[in-house]
Structure formats: C-alpha cells, structure tokens
C-alpha cells in the first residue's frame, strides 16, 4: 500500500497551506467548486456566500445524493472526505431548518459547506448520502435522533444516542425545552418501568437461537417492548 498524500491533485509548485491571518467576516476567495457545481447542476444550486473564509453553497435538498456523488467522483473536484453532517435550527421561527454537510477534498485541499433549507413545520426528509460516504451512516443517524430529519435510503435509520423507545421528541429542536418534555417524576417512572431486556433489538435477538428457548413471559415482554408498549 502506497502513501496517499493530500494535495496530490494540486500543481507541483503550490505552496504548503499556512495558518490563515486576518480572515474577513464576509467575502474573500470563493471555492471554485461552486462555479463547477453551477455548470453541472444549473438551477439546483442556489446562492453562495463566503463567511470567515469558508464557502457555503445552498442546494436543493432533494438532489444532495447526486451532488455528493458528483463531487466525490469528478476528477476536477474529488471531495472524497465527508467531515460532518448536521443541522441547524434558528431561534427565529420564520427561518428554515438548515441541513449542513461539510465536505473536504483531500487531493485539492478544499473545504466546502453545503446547505439545504427545510421547512421545520413540514415532514423533514432528505436523501441519505450513506451510499456515497460510509461515514454518513452514524452522522445521519445522529441528525435523525436529534432533529427528526429522516434520511431516505439510509440502511439503518435508528436513534443512536438516545434509546429506541425515547418518546420525548427530538432534543436539538428549538421547541424542545432544555430539561426535556417530561417532568422529572415522569422520567423517573419511565426509567423504573423500563424493561431490562429492552436494549436488545428484535433483530439481534432473532439471530440467537436462544430467543426461542426463552421463557414465554420474557419473550412476550420483549415483543411488547418492540411494539412500543
């Protein structure tokens, strides 16, 4: 296996990157990938801006998988590294909920922030980019867990940090109170009533032959937990 050097696609005499100095608040060099995206996808690409030296480009949420695939595979882009998937909901309820993807091109040493606006009052759904970047698997699960955004085509969209029967909603939404929706006594009651076998998903238990040999009442309890009771 040979060593993969970042910046390999840049011209030979490109200077090494340096610590940025006096980064302007607005304006500055626009990431050239924005123009390339416009040329490729046309009206799917919305406005762009440069804030603190980072380019943000707005896209149509439904096209994110095609755009990600093109950005990854086009030889002039090579955004091979998905840094982060997250979402932002503003305090101003009139503003849309934003999906944020941070992608990085190791060969070109570029960083791009891709954003898409979602209506927070409607069903939140965007295509999953897990088929493009494997790292999106858990990152998208976390966004689903925290914001309730559903990712179409995700292989295993479950809650990840919270437990599967968590019923209070999506904690990072702005309408979610800091202390949670349920009172402390309600949370305690639920915790005490929780089933110790609940942490196993049915899928996990079904692979074990032992499940069928469990006492009938335990099996029934597990099925009940799965059904949400």
């Amino acid at each position: 296996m040979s060593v993969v050097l970042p910046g390999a696609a840049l011209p030979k005499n490109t200077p090494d990157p340096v610590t940025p100095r006096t980064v302007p608040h607005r304006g500055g060099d626009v990431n050239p990938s924005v123009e390339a995206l416009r040329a490729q996808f046309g009206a799917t690409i919305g406005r762009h801006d440069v804030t603190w030296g980072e380019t943000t480009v707005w896209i149509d949420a439904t096209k994110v998988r095609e755009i990600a695939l093109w950005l990854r595979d086009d030889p002039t882009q090579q955004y091979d590294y998905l840094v982060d998937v997250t979402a932002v909901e503003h305090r101003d309820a009139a503003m849309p909920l934003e999906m944020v993807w941070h992608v990085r091109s190791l060969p070109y040493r570029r960083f791009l922030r891709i954003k898409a606006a979602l209506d927070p009052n409607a069903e939140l759904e965007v295509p999953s980019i897990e088929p493009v970047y494997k790292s999106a698997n858990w990152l998208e699960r976390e966004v689903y867990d925290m914001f309730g955004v559903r990712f179409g085509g995700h292989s295993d969209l479950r809650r990840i940090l919270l437990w599967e029967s968590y019923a209070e909603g999506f904690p990072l939404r702005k309408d979610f109170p800091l202390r949670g929706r349920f009172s402390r006594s309600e949370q305690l009651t639920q915790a005490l009533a929780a089933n110790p076998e609940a942490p196993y998903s049915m899928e996990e238990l079904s692979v074990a032959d032992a499940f069928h040999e469990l006492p009938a009442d335990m099996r029934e309890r597990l099925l009940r937990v799965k059904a949400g009771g």
Partner: protein
Amino acid sequence: MATTTRTVEVELATQTMSPTGEVFRMPLTANDAGFVMPIDLAPGTEPDMGSERMLINIGPQHPATHGVLRLVLELDGETVIRCVPHIGYLHCGFEKIGEYRQYNQIIPWTDREDYLNSMGNNVAYALSAERLFGIEITPRCTVLRVIAMELSRIISHLVWLGTTAIDLGAFTPFLWTFQERETVYNLWESWVGARLTTSATRIGGMAADLPSGWIDGLKGFLRSLPKTLDETDRMLTRNGIWVGRTVGLGIMTASEAINYGLSGPMLRASGVAYDVRKDVPYLDYETYDWDIAVGTKGDVYDRYLVRMEEMRQSVRIIEQAVARLPDGPINVDDPRVILPAKIKATSEMESMIHHFKLVMEGPRPPIGECYVATESPKGEKGYYLVSDGTSKPVRWRIRPPAFVNLSAISKMAEGHLLSDVIAINASIDIVMGEIDR
C-alpha cells in the same frame, strides 16, 4: 515526510511450561497474514457444534470497552459474523446545553467531552470562537497553546498505550505511561489549577500565564518521556504476543479509511498522510519542523506504531515551541472579550460597568458561522459555531472524531475472532465522553 516502516524482526518465542514442569521456549510465527501458532490438536477432540450462532453482549460496563460502549456480537464459533455497537450511555446533551450558554461558559463543557484531551479541546474551541469573533491571538498565546495541545496529545496517547497494553495482557506499560501522565497533570495543576478539567483558555487568550519554573518542569518531562517510550517500545514492538495480537487485525485500506471518514492515527495508519496540522494549519503549525507518522497496512499494529511516533513528534514540536516562546501578553487587547484588570474593575466606574456587562451579558460575535478543525489525538476535531449576533450560539456542533472512527468498528471486527475485537476496539482509541456528548 517520514513514513513508519514496518520491519518487524521478532524473535518469536515465548517461555512456557510443559505439563511435566519443564520450561521451554515455544516458537511462534508472525507474518502479515496474522498470528499462527502451531498447536497439535488430536483430531476429533473438539466436537463439531454445527452452525448454531451465538449472541454475545460486551459491555456497557466492561473494562475492555474503555467506557460505556456496548457491543452486541453474533458469533459463529469464535468468529464474529456481525457486530452491532450501541452507544449513548453517556449522552448528556452538550450541544443542547451550549445553546443556553455564553461563549466563554461553553469552555468547561469542552473539558468534559474528550476528557483525556481537555486542554486540546479548550484550545480547539477557543480557536473556533475566535474565528467567529474575528480575533487574532497574541504570539505568546499561540505558542502556549501549541505546547498545551501537544502535551495533551502525549497524555492522551499515553493513556491509550497503557490501557491497550492491559487489554492485550501486558500490565507493566500501563504503570510506566501513567507515571509519565502524572507529571503532565502536575504541570496542568500548577498552570491552571485543575488536573483533568482544565478550562485553560478564554476567548482571546488564556486563563493564566505560566507560573515561574513551569518550563523547567516541562523540560524535565521532555527528558524522561523518550526514555519511557523507548522502554515501552522495547517491551512491545517486537514482542511476540503483542505482534501476534495486533498484526493483520482490523485492516482498513486507504480508500476505505477515507470513505468511512476515519481521521487521526486511524487514518494515517492506513497510509493517508492527512493531518489537520499540515493540511489546514492553525497556531502556526506550518512553522514547526516535524513529520507525519504514516502506516502502511492499516492494521492495529500500525495504529500502535503511528501513535508511538506521534508522541515523539510531539516532543519535537514542544521543544521548538519552548525555544521560541516569546514574552508579552497572553490576552488580546480587545475590550469586546477580555475582562478589565481586577484592580481597575474595583476602582473605576467604567471598568466596573465593562466587567459587569461582559460577565452578565457575555461577548457578542457578529452574525455568521465557522467550522474550525484541529488535530486532536483521536482525529479531526472541529467545532462548528453558528451565531445570530446574540451572546449565545444558535448551534454549537462538535465534530467528534472518535464517533466517526467507532462507526467503522463493524467493518473492522467482522470476520475476526472474539478476542481480536478487544484489540480492534482498543485501537480506535475511543473516549465515550466525546462519542456520546
């Protein structure tokens, strides 16, 4: 750029005892394909169990899971067919809490996510917030932060080394590495007053300047650490058991590692020379003379080699930083974020009002957003901050390297033996505080 070459010249033999009590050396063989130990088993002693699969639960309360990770494994015999990780046992909603805190009040939370690297997180968060405020820190503060980050990297790797050695059956390196780590915690304590939860940075500077004699203590540590590393190296690198339990496990190729979003030593062990300090530099890292440690195979053994080399490179960086440490202020001269001197705040009306407003209302950045990545011991740790112009962020997002690295454990563990899962899991260097946040 240095590449960690992989020449494992191991005299593979282990001292063992025959049933009759004679001590003899049993030959072991190690090669890249894995660990082969010739054992003569009389045929038919093991009954064929058929294809019945077993479900094994490891954790969450298990010392080898380095915190509260839970792995559900589906086994065929001893081979892992499927590995399903469950996380979230430490989830406390840091990102939610951050939306209710002023920018400086978030710093204590950064201590508590990746708690082995609290100083590094403090610096990383402060860099991100300073970008959002448009602040340039002073030269002395820059160098102090480099020292803080690299020392933090060393102690995090030392904990990784010691605990991983314990996982794989070697107890002694744990004592050596924790002794070294203790020195650094003493240094932290004399600098900022805390050992684990340092909260050392402030937006625009540091909580405190170095106390007198601190650099001498640091130099003493820089002299003793390489000896400990050499000893550990002698103990482990060519040790037959160590090699046998790490070589060829959990291999990630370079393209897989990139696609799975691995970062830090995990990515570099797979042969990708990506280091945030070189590729997206901060704190003038480009002006220091140091090399990236890169592996060739991407297995558990390479991750060990990469981390060992990174500690040595960190020593190099700290030595250069100590040599160039300039005098001068540690805080920027910017009344938007820096409190007035205590003596002024108690004697002048304007300074008192200034102090009051900064503490009660908090500094306000302009509307905007930024993502600043740093190289934490676990990988690319970034803080994404979104501001709406008020004194509390709209969104405080931690890009958790260990979370993304851990998401590849199913890929790495499947097909290996149950006992290898422990080594693979240890090689990820997880800290559940950061993963669950």
